[in-house]
């Protein structure tokens, strides 16, 4: 199809993948739970968001496109909730005990 659409898709893909990479690096390198959680949420929402955006122009029909958007929204909702909960739980866990390292 049109070169512009393809180029946009690939660019958006790259950005999405880059966010995932950054997220996992953050998860690996950041010093404490809360910083890591921060990295995680970014990767979750933005990475999947950009990949969804990249796939949208290529979607065969509206049904598939809307499903893609729905998946993204659902993941965002779940990720936001879960990260909040994990953050609070981690606070609590730190209070209770500090598990030994690896």
């Amino acid at each position, binding site marked *: 199809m049109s070169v512009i659409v393809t180029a946009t898709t690939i660019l958006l893909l790259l950005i999405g993948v880059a966010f995932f990479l950054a997220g996992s690096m953050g998860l690996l390198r950041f010093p404490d739970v809360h910083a890591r959680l921060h990295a995680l949420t970014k990767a979750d929402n933005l990475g999947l968001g950009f990949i969804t955006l990249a796939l949208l122009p290529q979607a065969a029909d509206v049904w598939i496109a809307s499903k893609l958007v729905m998946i993204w929204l*659902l*993941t965002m909702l779940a990720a936001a*909730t879960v990260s909040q*909960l994990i953050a609070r739980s981690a*606070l609590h866990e730190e209070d209770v005990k500090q598990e030994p390292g690896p």
Partner: protein
Amino acid sequence: MIEAYFFAATVLLMTVAVCLVRVLRGPTRADRMMGAQLAATAGVAILALISPAGSPAMLDVALVLALLGAFAAVAFVKAATIDGAGDPEEESQ
């Protein structure tokens, strides 16, 4: 185009491999759970990326994963509370 999707998906697989390290190292359970969370999201992204190569049914798998990906984490935060059935928000007040 499909090739590009699969390359991207392959890179995502590798990012998952990276977050396995976090799951293995911990140190807290929250850290390990976060690794699972990122892996689930990456799984959703990978499914979305490889679905154009097959049937649209594959998007439904992504949908189910997106829906249920958070369940384990919810079970975890519930179980991590004092009586195992509470809400971390109750306890942080």
